[in-house]
Every structure is written in C-alpha cells, then in structure tokens.
C-alpha cells in the first residue's frame, strides 16, 4: 500500500504515469479506506489473515487467488483525454480512467469465451438488493456501476483516490475461489479455459493496452517499481501504512 501511495505522490510531483502489477506474498485482507477494522471480525473465514488498509475506498479484498493492479495518472492526462466533465474537476471519480481499464478487461474476457460485462450496462443481470450493493464487507460482494461481472459474479473491481489533480486507481481481478472467502468464485470456477500463465499475460496486457489507447500514450516497461519511482525500499518503512494508527484509524 505504501508503494501505491508513493506512486500517487510521484505522479502528482512529476506528471509521469506509473502502472504496477502485483501479487501478495501471504494471503492478506486489504480494508477499504473508510472501513472499520472491527468489521473484519464478522468475516470469520478471513479473520486470521494479515490485514492492511488501502488508501482507496470500497470494500475489503481477500488477496489470495487474485491479481492486483494500480495506476497513477497525472491531471494533465485526465484533462486532455476526458470526455466526461467531472474528470476535469479535481474531485470525485474519473469515469474515463475507470471505464478505459474495465472495458479493456471485458473485451479480453469475451475473447477468452467468458461472458463478462460491466454491471448495469445493457443486458446486465438484475440488480442485487441495495444492501448488497453498498454495505457488504467484501468488495466482491458489492456491486457498483461499471464493475466487471460474469453473470451475477463480480470478477473485477476498482477504486480511485485523488491527490491534487492526480488519481491512483487500484483494482483486483479474482482468479479462483479462496478458502478465506468461499462465498466468491473466480474466473477458474466461471469456466475460463486458458492456462494461468496466459491468463496473467492477458490481464496485464489488457490493462496496459486499455490505458495506452484511452490516453494515447505509450508506457515504458520498467522491471522495478522502486526504480521507476527513484525510491529505495527502506524509505517506505516509515510510511503511515506501516503504523498501527493507520490500520486502527476507523
């Protein structure tokens, strides 16, 4: 989480885009920024796991058989390539960024034979009860406009945080059911037939290409996010994300 925050600060300072893909060393719960820590105790399957708090909002994610991306985007790009009035306003979500990546994921999954669509787009499944949409502990049990779903099952969710004119977007794609969140199914259970290796390649390429096409940029490939940010790993150990007061803030 500290790296994601560093990306946002770097982007706001330099105007450069950073795109990152990552997995988790151990199964971990990430709480949404405004979620109460006490809520985790009601989710018995995951309550023994490590836990962190994200800078982005939304519901908790059990990071086990999922892949995560984050991208930090400067205001100049959001201004230049937005067809949405609100994206130019330094407050609230950027639908242009959100849709760029989710549309690209939907197209890729459909090419893989998975009937993915965006929630509440034409032909989307009927809405779930409103409490499911808003209040569920787990992100993947919530539904918001634009989430990527397969039938009733959400497989990709994203959320944003602003800093000045810049935005960090963070998202997770669910690959397989986890014993720590057994109510959720992933792409494997939903019938995706390709190998995990191809799936990962398809995911990362979809996010990258979706972004590059939507913002008319070409992103250089850098092997290390620390190299991209000009950061030493130890510099992050002082970040607020490591402090108990951050996790316990709500």
């Amino acid at each position: 989480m500290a790296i994601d925050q560093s990306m946002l600060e770097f982007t706001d300072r330099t105007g450069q885009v950073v795109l990152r893909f990552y997995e988790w060393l151990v199964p971990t719960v990430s709480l949404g920024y405004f979620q109460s820590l006490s809520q985790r105790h009601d989710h018995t399957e995951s309550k023994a796991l490590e836990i962190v708090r994200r800078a982005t909002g939304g519901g908790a994610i059990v990071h086990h058989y999922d892949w995560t991306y984050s991208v930090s985007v400067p205001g100049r790009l959001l201004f230049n390539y937005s067809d949405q009035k609100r994206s130019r306003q330094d407050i609230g979500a950027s639908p242009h960024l959100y849709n760029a990546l989710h549309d690209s994921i939907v197209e890729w999954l459909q090419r893989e034979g998975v009937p993915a669509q965006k929630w509440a787009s034409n032909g989307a499944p009927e809405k779930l009860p409103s409490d499911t949409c808003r209040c569920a502990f787990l992100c993947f049990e919530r539904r918001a406009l634009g989430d990527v779903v397969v039938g009733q099952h959400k497989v990709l969710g994203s959320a944003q945080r602003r800093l000045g004119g810049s935005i960090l977007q963070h998202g997770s794609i669910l690959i397989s059911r986890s014993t720590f969140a057994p109510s959720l199914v992933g792409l494997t259970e939903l019938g995706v037939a390709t190998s995990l290796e191809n799936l990962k390649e398809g995911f990362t390429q979809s996010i990258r290409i979706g972004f590059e096409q939507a913002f008319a940029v070409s992103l250089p490939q850098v092997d290390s996010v620390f190299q991209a940010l000009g950061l030493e790993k130890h510099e992050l150990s002082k970040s607020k994300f490591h402090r108990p007061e951050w996790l316990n803030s709500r």
Partner: protein
Amino acid sequence: MNPETLRYNSSHEWVGIVEENGEQIAIVGITDFALEQLTDLVYMALPQVGTQLSAGDEFGEVESVKAVSPLYCPVDGQVVEVHQELVDNLEQLAQDPFGSGWIIKLRVGGNVSLDNLLDYDAYRKQCAEA
C-alpha cells in the same frame, strides 16, 4: 450563506468570513458543483477541533462510490467547530451545501487574506469551462 459573496478554492471548497463573539470565523464547505461531480457520497472524514490548518492543507476526505477525494482548506486558521452531524447525514450536505451543509469553522486572524481565492464569477467561469 450567499454563494455570490463567498470565496472559492479551485478545488471547490467555499469560505465565508463572519464575526462570532468578537472573533473572525471562517466557515468552510464544498460547492453544489462539487457535490454534483461527486454524485453519491458514502463517507466523510473531518478534522478534530483544535487542529491548526494552513491554506492548501487537507482538512478532510470524502468517499463517493468510486473515489476518495481530499478536501483542501482555503485559509489559515484553527478549527473551532466541526459539523460532525454531517458525517451521519451526508444528505444534508447535498440539500443545502451553502447553509446547513457547512463543514468546519476556523478561527482566523483579523488580517485573513482571501486574495488568492476565486470570487463567485471566477469560480462559476471555471466550472463552465469544464
């Protein structure tokens, strides 16, 4: 508050100066335009009374359905009152953003400068250019 007499951050916070008990008090909120952009508000976090803020500091955060956005303080001052009721009733913010939807009050010095802020016409022009 009358929106036409207020001053604005380009990031959509408004401020009005009033006198209360012989002190200069800055009342701060966010604009109707910002609320329109945020759409559905879900959560709000506010500072503690006593917090010292400078113009440009983050004083709170709002979460709409897909984004967390910071709120920026328009003037220097010390927080003397926080509209805590809003946190549990965000609809009030949308219903009356320039009145009962105020967010914080700050004690400011007698020489508080509003020169770096937008007036009503300039702020509306910024919104119209979006």
